[in-house]
């Protein structure tokens, strides 16, 4: 069931220094029980939108609300209890164990002057378990492969227990099996009373798992709706060009969903 608005952006526009217009008036809604997938070509404003929604960037114009309150006015911890972010990668890898790293997700819930307790550890282990990363718990973050790191990043966000989860390209370093499993996990998360916004280039994972798709181009939402409404040649070709092959395949649970392949030739 799709429910209340967990995170809402209205008329979000952002211009970077040097007059680089990244977002040009975007409305976006992350709802309880829904997996929203944002697609779009490079430079279409996906990452800027994600950062603005997370409260990590003050947009030039527009309003972002988490649970009804302006996200920039929230105390950082309260904001982190409402909105979690799964970055695509980290600029620097801390020299800590996977478990200690994932415990970072509990920071917003720690009481002042108190460290993580047994319950926090339980949350972290459950999150690692659901991301197929529990066996990595004692490993050093810097020893992991790119894909393992990406799973740990998802686990840390789960441990954060925020109801809105923003995910940046979660499958960019994953093997095909873990790509599907990660999206299954994100879809599951949406079923558990949370809502997720996932930015991805993978149109086919979007097709299989999204409840709703928004197509971003040039800082605007040029199409938004159910998968069958957005992942069509009419909508995608003006944005992605002609090197795409379109088709349809059956999916688990009956029915069919579109697939799109980067494929030259006719």
């Amino acid at each position, binding site marked *: 069931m799709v429910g209340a608005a967990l995170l809402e952006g209205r008329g979000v526009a952002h211009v970077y220094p040097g007059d680089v217009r990244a977002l040009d008036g975007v409305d976006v809604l992350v709802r309880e029980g829904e997996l929203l997938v944002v697609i779009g070509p490079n430079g279409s404003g996906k990452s800027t939108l994600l950062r603005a929604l997370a409260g990590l960037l003050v947009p030039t114009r527009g309003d972002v609300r988490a649970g009804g309150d302006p996200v920039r006015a929230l105390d950082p911890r309260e904001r982190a209890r409402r909105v979690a972010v799964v970055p695509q990668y980290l600029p*620097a890898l801390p020299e800590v164990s996977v478990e200690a790293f994932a415990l970072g997700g509990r920071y917003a819930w720690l009481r002042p002057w108190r460290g993580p307790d047994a319950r926090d550890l339980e949350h972290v282990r459950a999150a690692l378990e659901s991301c197929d990363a529990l066996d990595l718990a004692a490993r050093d973050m810097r020893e992991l492969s790119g894909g393992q790191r990406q799973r740990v990043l998802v686990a840390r966000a789960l441990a954060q227990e925020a109801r809105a989860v923003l995910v940046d390209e979660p499958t960019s370093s994953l093997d095909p099996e873990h790509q599907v499993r990660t999206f299954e996990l994100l879809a599951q998360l949406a079923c558990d009373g949370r809502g997720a916004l996932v930015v991805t280039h993978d149109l086919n994972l979007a097709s299989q798992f999204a409840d709703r798709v928004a197509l971003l181009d040039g800082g605007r939402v040029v199409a938004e709706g159910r998968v069958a409404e957005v992942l069509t040649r009419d909508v995608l070709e003006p944005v992605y060009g002609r090197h795409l092959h379109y088709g349809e395949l059956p999916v688990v649970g009956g029915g069919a969903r579109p697939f799109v392949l980067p494929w030259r030739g006719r």
Partner: protein
Amino acid sequence: MSRATWIGVALAAALVVGVPASIAVGTADLALGEVARGVLATFGLGEPLEGAAQTIVALRTWRALTAAAVGGSLALSGALVQGVFRNPLAAPSLLGVTGGASLGAALAILALGGFAPRGVIEQAQGLATVIVPAASFAGALGAVMFVAVLAAPRGRLSTPTLLLTGIAVNMCVAGIFAAVQSLTLRDWEVSRAILAWTFGTLDDRSRLHALTAGAGLALALGVVPLVARELDLLAGGEADAAALGVDVPRVRLTALAAAALSAALAVAVAGQIAFIGLVVPHVLRLAVGPAHGRLLALAPLAGAVFLLGADLAQRAALGEGVLQPGVTMSLVGGPFFLFLLIRHRREVGAW
């Protein structure tokens, strides 16, 4: 017990042994019984020793306590600054602390050395050991605030801007300092006093000096619980820490302000003492890893033991008043740091 706990216990024990040893050793060696009685008397808890012995014990007590507090402050503020900048080469001096302190001290020495109106100088007679530290503290604080205001005009602190501004302000301050030195070259007493200050000194330290350095240390220790976990999370980058709920600007400001204040007080009290702020956090990181909870708890202990030990060793080996601890630190610290870098090339690179 974990490795960090062992190291903490060992450092605490070294401190407990080091303070009385430092009081006992010197031109006139004292027995431990005399030291104990003399120290108690210094704090007003017993009969003073006979003759000059009591004065010697009191002087050395304040010297030892000042050394411990200054060493602890410098090491802790170094660890804080390195944590904020996520850079093992950062030190409080980058923020202008050392340069500003030197300039403040030089100007005070200049004024007291004959460049202030005669009446002022007469009034200030005998207060030089208070006025020079006060001026150097003011200089350090002034330089840091100048750096902070220039680097963060609207309260938002950008790390590269802060580092570059720090370097630029340090250059300006060093220029003025050099000008003061060059203008006083003919007045050898003044120029000698300025030069001596830059070597750092623990001679003739009083209760006031020990308390001042102790207050700086206490202040920096007070912020440790507010920033330790947060500095750990900052290791993954600013945006990531903010997304986890860390108030990044507040953490940075708290840690840097505490580091700057305690380093400024330490430098004001003992002059320039190099390398502790850089080397001690470094060695600790190699020993106990990068987690700031452990690092920030052990740094003050290690810094205190380091400076106290260096001062003790130098007085035992060379006699009193031969070398100043700032010089010893530079002589020992530089090669030691090089040795560490060469030995741990890989770990140091993988900060």
